[in-house]
């Protein structure tokens, strides 16, 4: 008996070890390394191993940091609002208004079509569309809606958020759709039996029961947007910055200690945000 139990725990250890190894080497170790490097010293031409708080002091002492963090939060919040509104609506339509499973699957696949091309291509395709002489502007001019090209369509906060929403809405649709499909349809009937109209059912039954899915989608979108640097660079035409760009600029200048410190602060910020989100909803039910 004892033997069997021991061998069982051994098998258990063996089964988790590949994943543990991968996560250890490629996630935990790099983070430890970044943490260590963030305390190092750097000059214009050298990096010196040390244990100093210079990088953090500089980071928290610079007004640029606060502006950039604020900007990152701004992108995250605006993107969240739009991905949530679109994602919830799409998921709601798929889950409650399409009754045949075949159509549900077909329309769901339709939602994933943008994902068949790479992120970068999808992003860059916006440029000829939104540009000064792009399709959007020429169309609007030819319709007579505007007289001269709209300048804010491209290389602006608008285009950054547009690209984020385009890239990440599906991350909202999938978990919300998944949660909605698990809602017992007789609950909707019971609500109607109790006199609830469509809006009341949505507010009192569907929305609360969909919270875990919304929360999972929110975590996806918020972490993706807060960690991004490429979309902001391309879509803002290098005119606005977020934390990711701060880090990538430091790396380009070989200022690894400073980049590491910024990365650690960003990591902690994102973890705190997720921690706060998880306070609101218990997503364990969903996993």
């Amino acid at each position: 008996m004892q033997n069997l139990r021991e061998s069982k725990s051994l098998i258990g250890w063996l089964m988790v070890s590949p994943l543990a190894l991968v996560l250890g080497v490629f996630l935990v170790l790099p983070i430890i390394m970044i943490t260590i490097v963030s305390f190092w010293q750097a000059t214009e031409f050298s990096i010196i191993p040390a244990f100093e708080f210079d990088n953090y002091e500089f980071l928290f002492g610079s007004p640029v940091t606060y502006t950039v963090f604020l900007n990152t939060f701004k992108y995250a919040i605006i993107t969240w609002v739009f991905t949530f509104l679109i994602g919830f609506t799409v998921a709601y339509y798929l889950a409650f208004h399409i009754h045949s499973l075949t159509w549900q699957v077909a329309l769901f696949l339709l939602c994933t079509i943008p994902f068949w091309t790479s992120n970068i291509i999808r992003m860059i395709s916006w440029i000829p569309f939104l540009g000064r002489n792009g399709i959007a502007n020429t169309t609007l001019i030819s319709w007579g809606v505007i007289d001269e090209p709209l300048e804010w369509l491209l290389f602006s906060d608008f285009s950054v958020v547009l690209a984020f929403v385009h890239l990440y809405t599906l991350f909202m649709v999938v978990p919300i759709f998944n949660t909605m499909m698990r809602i017992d349809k007789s609950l909707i009937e019971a609500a109607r039996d109790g006199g609830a109209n469509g809006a009341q059912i949505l507010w009192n039954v569907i929305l609360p029961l969909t919270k875990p899915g919304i929360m999972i989608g929110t975590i996806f979108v918020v972490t993706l947007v807060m960690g991004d640097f490429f979309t902001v660079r391309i879509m803002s035409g290098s005119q606005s910055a977020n934390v990711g760009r701060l880090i990538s600029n430091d790396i380009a200048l070989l200022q690894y200690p400073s980049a590491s410190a910024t990365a650690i602060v960003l990591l902690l910020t994102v973890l705190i945000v997720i921690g706060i989100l998880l306070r609101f909803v218990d997503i364990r039910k969903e996993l």
Partner: protein
Amino acid sequence: MNAAKQDLELVSLTKRYGDTVAVDTISHHFKPASYTCLLGPSGCGKSSTLRMIAGHETVSEGSILLAGRDISPLPPAQRGTAMMFQNYALFPHLSVLDNVAFSLKMKGVDKSERDKKAGEMLELVDLTALKDRRPAQLSGGQQQRVALARALITRPQVLLLDEPLSALDPFLRIRMRSELRKLQKELGISFLHVTHGQDEALALADEVVVMNNAVIEQAGPAREVFNAPRTKFVAQFMGGHNVISLPEGQVAIRSDAVAPTEAGQGRIEASVVAVEYQGTHVSILTRAQGDQEVTAVVPDADFYASPHNPGDLIGLTWDQTNQHHLTA
């Protein structure tokens, strides 16, 4: 209120799903303030009928009258009906109290008022102590009582129950059915209860409506439907009956009305196939003319006074009044 005006009546009610007819032009008048069971095998149309009355299924043809008005085009909450769902359909994110108060909240009743009314309802089903729990923290029987309270708070004229006892264990089922019966008497409203268990229907119902293949086979007081089945289906579905082909046609006779006699002295001749002791009774399975199986259920004292063994030839007899002619 005038009781006669609260009658529920189905008029040529039909439900079609594409080409399939789930309910085929049924008409029935339900007695007011009575406990009615819609009984039948799965797929017979009883649930569709109930869901049409509740308003969760559209009516293909015909109408549903309640208190003299056609309620079939109305939304569920305006019909004067309330439904208790098979799996109870309690809102998992709401407390017991909020579940019961749900319909009041939808009507815009303010919180203190609806909590007071919901509290009274919970008192009725004896759940006051558990009002702050979530449905998942309740037993099956308690969940059912919450569902009952939630349905009754709308003050329905007819309470519709969709297989309300099927999710409970046998012991609880028997206890809950007496509670349902008691509640119906106290409230003085109509209960319409869908079930596939004839024992449940017999135990509960003032009136039993037996459905099969989308139509009503027979309707009447429980005792009448059991004692005098009109069709072969009803006789077999209610159980405890022999269906025998006699020269005058097919008849149904209750198993306990059939008595064994000496060979040659009965109405028909039969050979004993098996004898089963069942405690208070002994069941004698016989094979009569034309390869028909006939069961006689005899009090154990009578059987052991003149026992029969498998292979014996015996006669079977019964009273003419116990013989019911079957139309189909």
